[in-house]
């Protein structure tokens, strides 16, 4: 079993549909730490990605790059740019391969994670979307089928959110709230949990 351009398109459509109920949830989560726009921003980004016609795209890598470019038009926010950075890096790594195997997914998520660390300057453990992706990359190592991959990713993202809830945010605007962020979910981590759940659902 492998990941194709059409399965990527289907995943984006699914994520886009999931954003409708999620938008307000993420905005509310962000309002506790920032300006309450994480949901609206992600809805714009994923909505723009869903409009990309992937029918004529050669391979999964090129599809990811096209999606990254669409994302860059939709937002100037740091989380949105990091999201596009991860997609672009994964797309570059997969470039030229006709299909992506389930066994490649862990490596691609790790590539996205590392590109996002390099771009944004956050470290693992800072309680950001990076910690979710790190957990997802680890969990995907064991997956053998697309179904296993989807459920492993969803579980890992959910566990990461739970594990980091009791820790403080250490970067970005949320950092200014210091220990007040203990007990509060990071909106980016929450987004990864909900989106992976939607893909596994």
């Amino acid at each position: 079993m492998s990941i194709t351009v059409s399965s990527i398109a289907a995943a984006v459509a699914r994520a886009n549909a999931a954003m409708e109920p999620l938008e307000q949830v993420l905005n509310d989560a962000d309002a506790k730490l920032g300006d309450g726009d994480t949901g609206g921003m992600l809805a714009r980004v994923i909505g723009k990605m869903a409009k990309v016609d992937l029918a004529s795209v050669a391979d999964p890598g090129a599809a990811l790059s096209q999606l990254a470019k669409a994302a860059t038009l939709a937002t100037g926010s740091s989380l949105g740019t990091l999201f596009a950075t991860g997609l672009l890096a994964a797309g570059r790594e997969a470039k030229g391969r006709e299909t992506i195997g389930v066994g490649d997914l862990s490596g691609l998520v790790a590539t996205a994670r590392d590109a996002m660390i390099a771009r944004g300057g956050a470290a693992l453990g800072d309680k950001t979307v990076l910690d979710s992706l790190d957990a997802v990359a680890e969990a995907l190592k064991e997956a053998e089928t697309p179904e296993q991959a989807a459920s492993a990713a969803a579980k890992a993202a959910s566990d990461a959110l739970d594990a980091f809830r009791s820790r403080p945010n250490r970067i970005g605007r949320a950092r200014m709230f210091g220990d007040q962020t203990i007990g509060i979910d990071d909106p980016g981590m929450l987004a990864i949990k909900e989106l992976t759940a939607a893909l596994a659902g």
Partner: protein
Amino acid sequence: MKKLMNKPSDFVDEMLDGLVAANPSLALSGETGRVVHRATPIRKGKVGVVSGGGSGHLPLFTGYVGEGLLDSCSIGNVFEGPTVGSCMEAIRLADGGKGVLRLYGNYGGDRMNFDMAGEMLEDEGIRTTTVLGNDDVASAGPTERQKRRGVAGIIYAYKTAGALAEAGADLDAVTAIAKKTVDRTRTIGVALSPCQVPGSDKPSFTLGENEIEMGMGIHGEPGIWRDTLREADTIADEMIDRLLADKPEGPGTRASILVNSLGATPLEELFILYRRARAKLEAARIAIVRPLVGHYATSMEMAGASISLCFVDDEIEALLAAPAYCPFWTVTA
């Protein structure tokens, strides 16, 4: 806070529409609709100078697009970085085949977006370089200058890099003069009252009725101290003292000074500050060249002012004197 606006979500786009409608030298384009560029296309063979940043700071950043200054500028929502897409469009519009200097303020989000835009354009064969404005002395100590934020003083680098690019210099030379100008420019601000982002139900920060904050950033970032308002001369003295304490190595007997309103503070008060600042500088044996007093880099309706010093050498001074035209800053030969 009262504002003349329609829907908050239309604030930036309607502002840009009006800006270009009032100024035929400017044009607005791009898929994002958030790129301001010169109405006349870039001359083939000229190095491009591009900037960008959030809205809410006019004349910064878009207002400095013009002859002898910027070629194009990407613009974000109020106090938000421009999108990567708009940065790419701005860089393409500033590409005359000889490369493009990205010259913008040192903010994490802007850096991410411009870096990514540059990487994505490498595939198109456009060579870019980067110089970051980091003139705000209150935002980090002298040993951590690379961490300082960029504020009003970046306009000096716009002017010198823009003039050198107009004169036909190559990308390395334009980049070097921008870097040198940034390295020789220092700014400090003082805030008297806060500002409010359109659509938000509260100000970005609060200040007591009789309180001021020395060193506050242009988005309300915390400064050095917060205390009661004092006389203008006392404030000007402290600002100049702090700038001189941070004076760069090298030539230091001539400086251009910029006394800038953060938005609501009137010209009258700026001239009161200027008069004292000038006397302080003369007492320190620093001659003032090309003083600027007015609204050059604002934070919506924030009250307060910033003072910038650009310690010039012969090269910078000559480039500051070169002809330039944009809607908010004209230099004639």
